[in-house]
């Protein structure tokens, strides 16, 4: 009797594994979409130990537009891990399945897992039930696919292997670009020799260099590398927005661009006065424009000095003779 029941159980399990494998192969990235019924079929109704683990991504389409949750990004990373795992480990297929769930389709399962905040990823090991499955910490998906893979490796003892990110351009696109370039080069060289390209326009170079200057002094590279938001929402008063962050180690996007603009505008006005305005013959126009330019420059410098003192807290002072005090 016992032998028969184990045999049927293992048949049952094999059947489920092959079902999952076929579901997996049908999905483009290898992520299986589960709902309440299929979750019951593959997890709750199978007696532990199951022959497979499931890594479950909880998704909600209605929250995709909330940028701070980064759901779509994480979902993409999740599918990258999935496809990398499948392509790296063809032999251990059937040990670990990557699945996701949509909130609208499977609200029951969300409540069964006790999930009430997203993003949320859970690993259901072979011996675990719904409640005691392991959630992934915030830190484990902070570094995206790489850290998810580490989490999987540490919990399941299965190795994910190197992450294969899809290249920026597909092969066909690359070929197309190469062909277009090849065709374009002779025309370009011809124009170049004639000296008629955009490259020969100093105004373009001027605009470009001033823009690069503006871009750099505004600390935009800092914002890109650190992925800083343009502004923050005030913690104490959610209706207020914080544009300026106090403390010199960090800056917000809007803040950087504002100060970068102030940095740049003074120089541009000065250059306008010395190069453009002198050529105008009307004295009163010159006078009005100059007063305006000087006022704006003065205010801009004053504002930057004020902001800098406020942000860094440095007390810049002169070293006057002591008898002056």
């Amino acid at each position, binding site marked *: 009797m016992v032998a028969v029941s184990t045999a049927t159980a293992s048949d049952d399990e094999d059947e489920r594994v092959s079902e999952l494998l076929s579901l997996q192969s049908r999905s483009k990235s290898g992520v299986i979409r589960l709902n309440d019924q299929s979750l019951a079929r593959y997890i709750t109704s199978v007696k532990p130990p199951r022959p497979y683990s499931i890594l479950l991504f909880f998704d909600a389409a209605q929250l995709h537009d909330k940028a701070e949750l980064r759901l779509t990004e994480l979902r993409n990373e999740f599918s990258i891990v999935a496809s990398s795992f499948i392509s790296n480990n063809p032999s251990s297929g059937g040990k670990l399945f990557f699945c996701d769930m949509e909130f609208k389709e499977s609200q029951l399962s969300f409540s069964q897992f006790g999930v009430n905040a997203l993003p949320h990823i859970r690993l259901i090991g072979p011996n675990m039930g719904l409640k005691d499955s392991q959630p992934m910490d915030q830190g484990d998906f902070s570094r995206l696919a790489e850290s998810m893979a580490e989490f999987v490796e540490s919990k399941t003892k299965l190795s994910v292997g190197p992450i294969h990110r899809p290249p920026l351009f597909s092969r066909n696109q690359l070929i197309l670009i190469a062909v277009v370039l090849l065709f374009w080069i002779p025309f370009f060289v011809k124009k170049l020799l004639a000296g008629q390209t955009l490259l020969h326009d100093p105004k373009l170079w001027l605009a470009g260099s001033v823009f690069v200057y503006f871009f750099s*002094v505004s600390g935009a590279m800092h914002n890109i*590398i650190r992925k800083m938001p343009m502004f923050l929402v005030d913690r104490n008063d959610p209706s207020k927005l914080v544009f300026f962050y106090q403390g*010199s180690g960090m800056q917000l996007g809007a803040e950087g661009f504002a100060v970068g603009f102030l*940095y740049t505008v003074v120089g541009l006005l000065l250059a306008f*006065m*010395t*190069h453009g305005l002198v050529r105008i013959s009307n*004295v009163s126009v010159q006078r009005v424009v*100059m007063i305006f330019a000087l006022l704006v420059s003065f205010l801009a410098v004053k504002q930057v000095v004020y902001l800098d003192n406020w942000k860094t807290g440095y007390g810049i002072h002169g070293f006057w003779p002591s008898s002056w005090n």
Partner: protein
Amino acid sequence: MAASDAHSGASIRHAFGNVLGFFILLLIGVLAFSIRLFSVIKYESVIHEFDPYFNYRVTQFLTKNGIYDFWNWFDDRTWYPLGRVIGGTVYPGLTLTAGTLWWMLNSLNIPLSVETVCVFTAPIFSAFASWATYLLTKEVKGTGAGLTAAVLLAMVNFSSSFVPSYISRSVAGSYDNEAVAIFALIFTFYLYIKTLNTGSLFYATLNSIAYFYMVCSWGGYTFIINLIPMHVLLCIVTGRYSSRLYIAYAPLVVLGTLLASLVPVVGFNAVMTSEHFASFLVFIIIHVVALVYYIKGILSPKMFKVALALVVSAGLAVCCAMVAVLIALVASSPTKGWSGRSLSLLDPTYASKYIPIIASVSEHQPPTWPSYFMDINVLAFLVPAGIIACFSPLSDASSFVVLYIVTSVYFSGVMVRLMLVLAPAACILSGIALSQAFDVFTRSIKLQLPSVSGQSNVDAGEASSGNVVPNDPVKTDKNEDTSKERTSKKSKKKEKEHVEKPVSKSQIKKRLLVLPLETSIIAIILLVLLGAFYVVHSVWAAAEAYSAPSIVLTSHSHDGLHVFDDFREAYAWLSHNTEIDDKVASWWDYGYQTTAMANRTVIVDNNTWNNTHIATVGTAMSSPEKAAWEIFHSLDVKYVLVVFGGLVGYPSDDINKFLWMVRIGGGVFPHIKEPDYLRDGQYRIDSMATPTMLNCLMYKLSYYRFVETDGKAFDRVRRTEIGKKYFKLTHFEEVFTTHHWMVRIYKLKPPKNRIRGKIKKSKSVQNKLENKLEKKRTKKEPLLV
């Protein structure tokens, strides 16, 4: 008669300008030197920070043992047990410079110590750097002699001798590569522009030699060898090819590359790494272009069109082949032939993702906008005006400066350390902007002042001859016979004239280009105020922000000045109380100082060439005591040194650097997992800390007996009470803690005997002999307790 009067007046003005210019130069040199002495006055004549200690040690070795021994020096006091080939891995420029200075002074019977020479090398070279900046600017804007030149000189020198970001790396005592390298960088650029303006092979050769000096001094030479080809390419693409460009570029590549490969640390890298490939590619292109121009010269226009098709297709084919070879070469190496630091410039997010050891260094962080205000101050406002001034008119030289500022400002945006390269460019451009602004405003005032309106005719003529020389080629030509300028200057001027002729229309029109009187006065006042603010800011930065040697610390409180000299106390203790061959382990930051000041062997130091070795130390620091003891014991370490700021509130201590130890350690040894140390994504040492954190060696060595200081164990850096206050050390013993607890030194306990348990059980005297025998036997085995 009137003409000759005007003539003699102009030449007096000319001479006056020259004399004034000379004195300004001299004073600026003195100023640039003396503003960097705050650290000596406020502290003492001492070498600063970390890297300078290594340079100092190398210089000592050089002066003691001579150049050949220095070249072949294998240092066994560091990276134990690997050692380091110093001669082949160090940029020797700074060391050789200071060594030569010391040797010269000593042969003049001025007995200065090596340390003194090292301390003052940076201020001396910053004076040179400000002079070089002036030369470069003069070459760029081509202002003739006279008062305008003096104004320009004052402005540029003034900004370059003050610019805080350069001060930060060149205060007295900051004996680092950048101190001489910035001078070399600017001087190389100056010679390049000089060659470009004159087309003289003499300057081209000098340029290669200056480049060689730069390669000797700093890894940043790759900036030159990429910027100059970029400029050449730009000139070619925008149709500015000339034989002068060829002379400026081709000898530099050939001679420069040959010379660069003489420096051991560069060697074959000069032809084999991707950083240099751009220069070779442009070298090929400029030859193709030169050939095209040559053929154009010898053929009739019709024939040329036929030949052009031929040459262009052949040239393109060659280029394509070369590009293919280059790409294949590049692709064959794992990092695509680029070093990590260069890659992180091109793809700014590269380092933070893949190389924690580069990302961990604070000067490799991207700066925020206050850094620009701190480091180039009001120059940040003036640079855009300078860019525009360079575009009107655009010459070969001014396009170079524009390219220089654009690339350096981008790079400085990626890494705060490269602010240093931006500084000279910012000085040049704001100097140009300021002198142009002063030119326009003073001219406006001068021509419209009611008191001189009667003489305005003469004045105007003179003013334009004195002030606006570049737009006045006819005048220069006239002056040529009588002027005492050297021939090179003359030929340069001819070049200038040829470049700028289309812009200068007429003298009369120039006179009319004025602004209203009152507003000009206000503008001048505002500009002067801006300059005054710059001086105040820079002096403040030099005195307060950048002059701390970081080896001696001070703090002001209500009861006066406190001096923290714990580092030297600790190093002195090490050198007096330990064996000469003992090995000291610490985090890599303190490696150079330990070897230089305590003269003890270290495991890792600031030359982070071996990631695995550093990861080993990081792993030991983040392991529990026993595992750490085993790691250290396997490295023959006898003492462990930790820096702890919790008592006095010194923020850059080892607990704050701990995340990098875990990250770097975990990168090589996967059993160290960062999440084990994190609570809610943060490193915490209070009661919320994770058990792994509370048991790791770094926590224990830092906080051992800390509770005895105030009874609460309150950490002033983290502003919290620590999580675990009472614990004992099992494998380490405290041997020395400095006055303010900033440096704590521990000794590894000797291996415990396995039999000790047995001794305690059988306390009988008879067994003693037996125990002794057993002890001898077990001594050979590695002991695991």
